[in-house]
């Protein structure tokens, strides 16, 4: 792993960049697929309940 090779300050720099990409993907997916995700997560209420 890259952490074994680089000093923490440098590997932290790379991680901040990677997390920025992850944040960009998550934010975009959440914005446009919010309903679908919530439907997947939530159980549908039982009929008559």
């Amino acid at each position, binding site marked *: 792993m890259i952490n074994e090779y680089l000093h923490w300050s440098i590997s932290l720099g790379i991680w901040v960049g990677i997390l920025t990409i992850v944040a960009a993907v998550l*934010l975009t997916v959440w914005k446009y697929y919010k309903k679908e995700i919530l439907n997947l997560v939530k159980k549908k209420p039982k009929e008559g309940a």
Partner: protein
Amino acid sequence: MLNQLAGLEILYWTVIVIYLAFLAIAGWLAKKKTKTLKDYMVAGRKIGPLLLGLSFGVTYFSAVLIVGGGQFAWNWGLSVIWIATIDVLIGVFIIFVLFGPKTKALGEHFDSLTVPQLLSKRYQDPKIQTFTSVVILFFETVYLVSIFMGLSILLSVTFPGNPYAYIIAVTICAVITIFYLNVGGSHGAIWTDAVESVIMLVGVSLIFFFALYAVGGFDSFLGTLGDIERSEGLKPGSLKVFPGAGGFGVIGYILVTSFGVWGMPQMISRFYTAEKQKSIRWGLVIVCIWAFIIALFAWFNGVLARAYFWEHDRSTYYDIAAAKGETAVPMLMIAVLPPILVAIFLAAVLAASLTTGEKVILVAASGFSIDVYQVKTGASDDKALHITKIATTVLVVIAAILALLKPAMVLALCMFAWSAMAAVILIPYIFGLVWKGGTKKAVMWSGAVSLLSAILWFILFRPDAPTAWGVFGLTYPKALRDIAALRIIPTPWFVISIGSIHEFIISQLIAIIAFPVISLLTRGSKPSKEFLNEIFGVMKKAKTEE
């Protein structure tokens, strides 16, 4: 040996000519889509996420990153990784999330094609358009010269012994750019950006992997950096930690290259080309991934070059060190890549300069034709399009001549162009999107004060100040040199001297204080409440738009 060199030259030129011919054809094909001024300037506002993201990336990172970045990386070591990271975080992520959607919505609402147009309509004063466009026209032309001149280093390394390579390259670049911009405009530029982005990504990654293999992997690479530190009497770890050998220079450079994007008209106007709000969001994902990989590898390459030549070719190492690392990445490219890949990458870097240059010219030319000429004469869009095309030709010719003559003053000004444009645009642009209180007087006065402070700081204290004084036949006073060397914050890790603070930081600090203060003092010149509610409504709607 001579035959081999000549053979390589032929190979390089062949690939370059094929590549540039492709650019010209792309421009010609884009002609069909380019009928109106809007098509020409903002690609008819019809660009999807993929092209938007890649076009933003290529405009941001050009040959300046690949060649110039390598120079900083050579001197500063691995701390430059942080430049790549923060550029992606602030220069890409934040501008796309916070300001991109609003910029597109306002650009559409005002039907503006240029950044000065957007500012003047937002603050309701045509004078703002003239003021900002004059600054843009002047400094974008200077910036264009620096882009052309960036090629000279690359070509001097790849074509050693051919003194005409630079002249030929600048002439070809100028001719292709003129042809290309006269037929294709934004449409052509965006399509070639996409191809460009792929070649740049592949090229930079190949250099990285080939070089890493050549230095024997990460372990051995870090070991070599340690050897260099010991042999050259550097502090242990200074090439391997943040901020290390770079000190405050790295932090200043991070701020300039990341926040600077927020004030560059050629970057802001990318959002005008987006087809929908959705294009901006998905464009963000694409540009984040592309930009991080390319910036990370491009910065790494400069450090890898230092380790590679230290291990394999000590005399070249000392040559590069004597040139302060300027030739690090081009030399590494030739050393580790097979000739055909060198040729392709060379063509790509050449074209990277062209594609960034095209947008810079478009912005500068429209600064004259739309923001000054059309405003003053009330000319039709067709007439403005015609004038824009003439202006692009004139500007390219001026820039090419300046690039060939390399006058000392232009060289010094190149470093300054970004700070100057950001001084008049950044704060009014950002405040205009988020705060209702800004006034037209604040735009003009804070812009003027900020620009003046940038100029003064540059000619009084910065390392290029002696050159600026020399142009006027003056000697840089010793008293100023002493002040510039004054250390204001001595920390255990690095020292901050007056001269090490970039004029960008000073001028932006002044603007960020001056703009709200002047706005509050001149509340009377604020646009009407109805108008402000209307445009903030437009921006709010953009945020929720699916």
